């Protein structure tokens, strides 16, 4: 307790003496000299990064300059959708990628389409492409779960059942529809 009192008295004495000292004006260019005497201090990388991230900034661009950026963005979104591959969620229904193929080593047919219950038996967007290497017509499609009936339509006139189909069904019109079983994530394995 007594030490503290002594410290307070000493402080009061110092303050008193300082106030009694004569005032002198600051020498010319004092601030600059003091600053010049200090070593330059470089902020750390993290501090600079933090300042860059948290500091406000503005970008200016023309509408024309946004086109490449938008094109890249759209391409990325489409690529992402394609990467989802065989399991695409469409309105809550899981679609499965299946491949149809019809052997035709001599390419006797001019066009081949897959028509079936999954595309309302419409020929639009169901045209197969010819794989020269394997000598067959190919089409990939994304289908919902179910047992789907289909046939190949050759040269827009001739109906052909799939010789590889696990099962066929009489269509009631004099043809045999091929049956494809799709079960969730994959074509039903056996």
């Amino acid at each position, binding site marked *: 307790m007594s030490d503290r009192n002594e410290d307070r008295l000493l402080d009061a004495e110092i303050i008193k003496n300082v106030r009694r000292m004569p005032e002198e004006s600051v020498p010319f260019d004092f601030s600059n000299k003091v600053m010049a005497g200090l070593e330059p201090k470089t902020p750390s990388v993290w501090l600079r990064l933090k300042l860059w991230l948290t500091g406000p900034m503005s970008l200016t661009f023309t509408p024309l300059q946004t086109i490449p950026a938008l094109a890249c963005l759209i391409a990325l979104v489409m690529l992402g959708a394609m990467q989802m591959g065989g399991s695409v969620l469409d309105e809550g229904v899981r679609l499965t990628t299946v491949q149809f193929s019809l052997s035709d080593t001599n390419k006797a047919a001019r066009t081949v389409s897959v028509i079936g219950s999954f595309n309302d*038996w419409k020929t639009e967007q169901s045209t197969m492409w010819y794989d020269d290497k394997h000598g067959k017509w190919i089409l990939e499609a994304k289908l919902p779960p179910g047992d789907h009936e289909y046939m190949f339509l050759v040269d827009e006139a001739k109906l052909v059942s799939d010789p590889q189909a696990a099962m066929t069904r009489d269509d009631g019109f004099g043809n045999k529809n091929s049956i494809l079983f799709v079960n969730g994530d994959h074509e*039903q394995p056996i």
Partner: protein
Amino acid sequence: MNSRSSLYIATLVVFAVSLSFLPASAAGKLEDMAAHALNCGVSSESVEQIRGLSSAGASEDAAVAVLSPLLNACVDQLPVSPLEIRLSEGVTKRVPLPAISVALEKQLASFRLAREILLTTTGSLNESALEVVGNGVGKGVVRSDFEAFATEFGKQPVEVFLTGLTMVSLQGQIDYDYALTQRILEKGIQAETLSPDWQYFVRVVLAARKHGIEDRIIADAAVDVLDKGEPVSSVLPELGFTDRDLAGGISK
């Protein structure tokens, strides 16, 4: 006005009145029915397809006969979409309209029978079940199979019920004895291992039959697999098949 004029006027009035009692012309009938069908919920695409057939040269009566089952299915609150798909199938395959009409009427009758089966056995209607049974009876599955299944398993959860119903339909279409299907279902339901992937067990039956395996032995293997809680893909290995792709590596 002399008596002859009165006679003319009377004749004209009788003629006009009798005209109003004549049936509407076929074109009028088609348009009337098309309007009713659209109001009920038949898709505009199907109605336009039938109108297109009519304007392409088909007789109006034939077009009316094709539209009629669609409208009746809609009015009876039966599934319309399978009939619309059947219509498209017939048109794409260039089937004559009278044959399409017959096929649609047959399908409508199948759905009516399916509704009767489900209502008299389970007391309720599920649209998916209605389609499965309707398609099944349309493809020749006997109603007693569906009745037996629905009576025995009607209280099962919907997913299990639909899996079993699909098995009865698909296996019935290849003449797999219902008694064997019933054994498989009873085991799967009792062991609680009848997952939805079992609905296409018919593929296993077809593959095994190709190798001369009897239906009863296939059923025994399925029962064992269900008892062990394994997936349907384990049945063929249980029957002695290897794991290689029996479809020849071709995916469809």
